[in-house]
């Protein structure tokens, strides 16, 4: 401690400032989105904005707590933290509380806690711990399977609790694996599968097959040296067709109707005007309202607490998943681009610091933090603006809710702590 003191404040200033900007701006928007009439008491804990203020206060306590632990603590206890998180998720099946059809909450008195928000940093710690083991080699199938298992358990548990949105977040670890040595072919296959799925749904199997054939034929002619046998190409084509067909079957029978509708809206598959009209009142309602709210903000917005759609609570869930629509309406393009740029800066700063870490554990953990924040940011804002199908996950530091705020704070500040310790690493 003495050594630290004479070097002054050793935590990364930039991350802390960006964090404060996001949390502060987030609070203002929650205030806007949740107030009814004139705000007389900012600490009124019967109101969401009052509760959020309490959460914020506790967040700072939490930050101090996290920073005061020894950095080595997190590495040493990663597995235990992970186990606790898994147990907490399993416990939900017995003690959990249903909210909106998802069994994701523990109820303690009037408070609720959502363990899946804490499982993210726990998984990140476990992944970092495993990959940083000297024995681990991400090029081997064995280690690939094991590390996938680490993320698979929490993801599966969350999916079983009917929270598909939070499950998708675990895809973020793909970026981490890739950074740590996963073969290129996974990236190519992964991208191809996504494209095949979208093509198959949007244009049908036949057109997809034609497109795949064209691509394969061009690959065959451009690869003069290692062409391989034609059989291989035919096999790839057949697998592609089978995959597209599988996706189609899964889309039609494997998912819930509301999820099906969300995808159909995103890909504009629905042509029946009567059904579209019905969707406008259900699945599409939120999206239409939020796009309208954002558009109506124009360049400079209607002003803090002046948004007519925010005040009228036109966008359901506007203080949680759809908080970005409030930013759009009241702060306009200036506010929304500020939020986007701040997030991009934060993620890039984390990436930059992660690469600078001497210990592999810190680097992998930092990378995980960046990837998780990135996936949340992309899915949430993309959904609110109608760029990707509706997936209900919060915007980090912005959306209302104690669990989410604390989960992301812990996630981020463990990295701040690890980073502050890099000078001591040998």
């Amino acid at each position: 401690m003495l050594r630290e003191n004479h070097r002054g404040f050793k935590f990364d200033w930039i991350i802390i400032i960006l964090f404060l900007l996001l949390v502060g701006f987030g609070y203002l928007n929650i205030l806007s989105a949740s107030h009814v009439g004139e705000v007389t008491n900012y600490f009124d804990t019967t109101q969401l904005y009052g509760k959020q203020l309490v959460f914020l206060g506790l967040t700072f306590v939490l930050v101090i707590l996290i920073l005061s632990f020894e950095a080595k603590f997190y590495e040493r206890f990663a597995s235990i933290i992970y186990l606790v998180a898994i147990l907490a998720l399993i416990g939900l099946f017995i003690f959990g509380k249903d909210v909106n059809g998802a069994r994701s909450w523990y109820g303690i008195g009037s408070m609720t806690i959502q363990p899946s928000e804490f499982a993210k940093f726990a998984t990140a710690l476990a992944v970092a711990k495993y990959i940083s083991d000297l024995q681990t080699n991400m090029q081997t199938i064995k280690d690939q399977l094991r590390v996938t298992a680490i993320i698979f358990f929490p993801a599966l548990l969350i999916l079983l609790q009917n929270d598909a949105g939070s499950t998708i977040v675990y895809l973020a670890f793909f970026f981490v694996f890739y950074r740590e040595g996963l073969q290129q072919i996974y990236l190519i296959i992964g991208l191809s599968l996504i494209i095949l799925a979208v093509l198959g749904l949007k244009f049908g199997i036949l057109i997809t097959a034609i497109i795949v054939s064209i691509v394969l034929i061009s690959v065959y002619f451009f690869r003069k040296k290692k062409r391989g046998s034609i059989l291989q190409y035919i096999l790839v084509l057949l697998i592609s067709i089978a995959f597209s067909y599988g996706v189609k079957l899964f889309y039609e029978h494997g998912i819930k109707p509301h999820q099906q509708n969300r995808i159909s809206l995103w890909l504009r598959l629905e042509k029946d005007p009567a059904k579209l009209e019905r969707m406008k009142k259900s699945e599409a309602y939120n999206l239409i309202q939020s796009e309208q709210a954002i558009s109506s903000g124009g360049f400079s917005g209607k002003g803090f607490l002046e948004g007519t759609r925010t005040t009228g609570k036109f966008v359901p869930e506007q203080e949680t998943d759809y908080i970005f629509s409030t930013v759009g309406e009241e702060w306009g393009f200036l506010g929304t681009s500020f939020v986007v740029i701040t997030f991009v800066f934060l993620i890039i700063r984390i990436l930059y610091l992660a690469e600078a870490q001497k210990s592999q554990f810190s680097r992998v953990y930092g990378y995980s933090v960046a990837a998780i924040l990135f996936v949340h940011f992309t899915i949430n804002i993309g959904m609110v603006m109608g760029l990707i199908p509706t997936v209900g996950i919060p915007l980090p530091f912005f959306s209302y809710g104690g669990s989410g705020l604390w989960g992301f704070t812990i996630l981020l500040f463990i990295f701040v702590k690890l980073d502050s310790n890099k000078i001591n690493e040998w």
Partner: protein
Amino acid sequence: MRKLLLLATVLLVGLVFIARLFYLQVYNSSTYNIFEDTAIRKVYNYPKRGYVYDRNGKLLVANQPSYDVMVIPREVSPLDSLELEEFCGLLKITKEEYAKKLNKARNYSPRLPSPFVPQLSKTDYAVLQEKMRKFEGFYIQKRSLRFYQTSIGANVLGDLGEVNRRIIKRQPYYKLGDLIGKQGIELSYEDVLRGVKGIKFIQKDRHNKNIGPYKDGIYDTLPKPGKDITITIDSDLQAYGELLMKHKRGGIVAIDPQSGEILAMVTGPSYNPNLLVGRERNKNFSRLFRDTINMPTFDRGLQAQYPPGSPFKVINALIGLQEDVVDVGDKFTCRMGYYYGSRRLTGCHHHRSPVDMNAGIAQSCNAYFVNVYRRIVDKYDDAGKGMNIWSDHAKSFGLGNYLNNDLSVGRKGRIPDGDYYDRQYGDNRWGSTYIVSNAIGQGEVEATPIQLANMAAAIGNRGYYYTPHIIKNIEGDTIPKKFKTPNHTTIDKRHFEPVIEGMFDVYNKGTAQSLRIPGIDICGKTGTAENFIKIDSVKTQLTDHSIFVAFAPKDNPKIAIAVFVENGYWGSRFAGRMASLMIEKYIKGHITRTDLEKWILTHSLENEYKKPYSGEPFKINGETTLQVIDEYSINTNSELQNLNY
């Protein structure tokens, strides 16, 4: 490379988001308009529209409440068949109409309110109001409609109609479903009568519930009531004029020469102004408007432009005196017409010859005025110059151009000048003999009845007139200055006396001897105008129009009047009689010559008007017989009677 994947993806997503936000919020976003914000309910509070009184303080136009069912299509929740049946039953429309109306409103704008069923009756409103809450997206807008206290003066008072989209685009004050003046004083004094509607902005939530005033009501306004106006019309005189005009077509305009105030403005056939109020308005309006034979919406007092005939002769007499080309005592011979060499340029009727100015006017001698007119035009070597001077003099009487007054319609009339004939015949390839018809008010000269009445006022005033206008008083305001300043003619005052004497003798010993009113000195001039129409592209002459122009009393005139009766034959036959009765009615307040009145009321020209449409050959002028009708059928006061159909 591996290090860059996530970094590159982050930057890419950031850029895509900024681009999308730019598209949504800057490129694709119009400037914020609270009227298009569906989160804010706009509640209008319509002010009282100003009342209209006649010059004697009699209330002519008041208001009555009306209730419109409005719809905001995107807020309409689909009704199940039971609800639909109930709703349609309440509104008295069919389900098909419901779908059609909703579609129409949606086509206009899904976000803005459109009238769904306008102008409910009070009883329908009472029933509906209770149940309105059940039908999302619909609400009732209270408005006020006109309530005409009289059945006369439809052309004067005008009417209100719903604003169309063109008007809304030009004047954003108006919203779909609002009423605006369409004709008459409702149109010309729209801004005064209308007032300013008040508006309340109310914040809604997504369930369409009001949750309080928007920004504590700082943008809310109170309605400003419209101002009451008093018009110059004497409703008794107007009503009498309309009575006289029954079964005839034509126009009467009476002006107070000392102020330019229009006392009466009659057009026939007319209609009951209450026909154009409420739900029946559209039906009635198209019925009236599409009647291209009777043309009840065509104001013949203001818009009927015809050769004025003989009354125009007095203008030529005045110009002749002013230009010093003729003396009062100069006599001209008339041999049943005017001869140029051996060619007769105009005919004339039988009277003593030669005639001086007084007799020329009193006997309406064509030859006399052709002589005078030729002297004016030929005063200079260049006929064009003479014609221009003549034209300027004539125009100084308010002829040949818009009167620039406060009436919603009008015509320019026509007073040709040298350039006009240069265009017609080629430069300087014409002379006074080409255009002698102008001397007797035929040929190229054209005027409307209101111009002729104004001309009479200018003569009666001995050289000036006030722009004829219809506004007498605006509550809390002044009337435009231009109506208070005299317009002077180019004729010296001294030249008027001999001409006025001639017009006085029209009654004393001339063409209107039979129409004298005991105790009132009237100066007038008869007119008869030939007219033609095309029947199956053959130019066919119809019975002449009967015209009369007069003012009375001779000194300090109180009324100047022009009467014009289509196909009424000679001037004193219909127009003269009617002018005489109107003058007596206005000055004395009652009619002493009931036999004259009865003659007008019992003689109809309707058979005359049917002739061109009969498809059979017909006779005109002297070879026709007058149609006599039962006088008791006149005074029944049903709406259709008023239409004179």
